[in-house]
């Protein structure tokens, strides 16, 4: 029987291993809906979900939108440029207005860490964090984990390397929290400016050369170089990055035969990963996108069901 009682999904740091498994098991059931000819179920009929994206995003927003539609919820999309935040309205006031419109679920993407918690503590609506600053991106973390488990069966003892800009990556944080709880061994790989030793406190290993992990990794999760977030002092140059951290064709040949190649997208072809490798047999990048839909359906379903449960 389900032990889910949360109204919100703010991050994977605060979830127990059991709660993670509930979401993943639920997602497994919802994945089947996308494979039917009629890709819709009535579970959230009568619910209204607001996609509130203060920071731009296409794939996460579309994925949440489609997930809600497949659950028969009504969906409203609001972007920063179209909202009154542009006119000086505070986040809280905007959100209170959304609640006054009887929104049941607010999916929030925001450039400030903690924005989703700020709303969750003030509103009755369920708040789903769709990325808050460099803090967490829980549904991306969940879909990564879902894909790994789907392909491998279990994460117990699996060697997972997360490669790239860890410092600014909310995806990496959500991955680390969940992977640790589910028994995987995590190694972070990147330049020392973007993967400081301090990360070892999270219970992970730190490496500064991709070549160090190629022969041992069961999964390589390549993060996007976030050009929009980079500052010169963190980053010597794209050429240097490719040389030290890019998953080139030659490096990919040194990976174990069953090693999964993952990327949260959008990929910079020829930077984090060679085009041939991204499109190769071991790449599960597009499956991650498909699984994202199932995971988001599960999260929306669980959080919506949590409304009205005793605290």
């Amino acid at each position: 029987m389900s032990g889910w009682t949360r109204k919100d999904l703010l991050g994977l740091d605060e979830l127990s291993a059991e709660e993670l498994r509930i979401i993943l098991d639920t997602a497994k059931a919802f994945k089947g809906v996308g494979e039917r000819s009629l890709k819709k179920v009535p579970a959230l009929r009568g619910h209204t979900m607001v996609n509130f994206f203060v920071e731009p995003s296409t794939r996460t927003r579309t994925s949440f939108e489609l997930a809600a539609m497949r659950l028969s919820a009504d969906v409203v999309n609001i972007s920063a440029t179209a909202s009154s935040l542009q006119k000086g309205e505070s986040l809280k006031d905007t959100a209170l207005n959304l609640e006054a419109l009887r929104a049941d679920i607010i999916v929030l993407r925001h450039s400030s860490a903690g924005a989703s918690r700020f709303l969750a503590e003030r509103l009755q609506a369920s708040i789903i964090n769709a990325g808050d600053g460099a803090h967490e991106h829980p549904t991306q973390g969940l879909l990564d984990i879902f894909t790994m488990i789907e392909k491998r069966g279990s994460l117990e003892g699996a060697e997972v390397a997360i490669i790239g800009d860890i410092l600014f990556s909310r995806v990496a944080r959500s991955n680390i929290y969940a992977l640790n709880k589910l028994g995987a061994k995590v190694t972070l790989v990147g330049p020392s400016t973007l993967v400081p030793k301090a990360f070892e406190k999270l219970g992970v290993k730190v490496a500064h050369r991709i070549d160090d992990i190629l022969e041992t990794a069961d999964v390589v999760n390549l993060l996007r170089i976030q050009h929009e977030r980079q500052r010169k002092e963190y980053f010597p140059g794209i050429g240097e990055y490719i040389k030290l951290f890019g998953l080139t064709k030659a490096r990919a040949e040194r990976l174990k035969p069953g090693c999964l190649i993952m990327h949260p997208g959008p990929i910079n072809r020829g930077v984090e990963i060679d085009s041939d490798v991204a499109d190769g047999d071991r790449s599960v990048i597009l499956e991650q996108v498909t699984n994202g839909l199932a995971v988001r359906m599960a999260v929306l379903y669980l959080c919506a069901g949590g409304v009205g449960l005793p605290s």
Partner: protein
Amino acid sequence: MSQEHPETLLVMDADAIRKAIRRIAHEIVERNTDLSRLVIAGIPTRGVEVAKRILDHIEQIEGVRPEFGVVDVAMHRDDLRRRGRLTAVVPTELPVDLDDRVIVLVDDVLFTGRSCRAALDAISSFGRPARVQYAVLVDRGHRELPIRADYVGKNVPTALEEKIRVRFENLDSVPDSVRVVRAVNS
């Protein structure tokens, strides 16, 4: 907050359950001459167990084992907001194309009829069966929808505040039983 009263009334023991399921299997065989078109589909969780046992009996009686399936109900219910308690979502597993098949939906307890309606919705998103029949181990009454079962193991009249508790040895580590449990407000 409600609590279960320690006193419960045993309405079916293991033998009665076995006989009831065997009778249902006979009735299904009688009514469906072409077993190759039949799919016996359980509604999670205990409906799946009843469905498996019906299949075992049909196999003993006829020497043929019809197809088996699992039909998710949780995500097809439209009263999520009102229930206040979550049902775990289980993947639907249907081994064959449902078009022109005869489906026997199987559940442990028939109560309001909403699970059956949800299961019918689920089935309709997989195909268009020729016919859908409905088998339950216990019919406890209190329907909220115009639904009735084709095969009933036992009719057990109940009060609304009572519950029916079905236990199977292989799932619950206690002998097979159907009990009426009276919930009292504390």
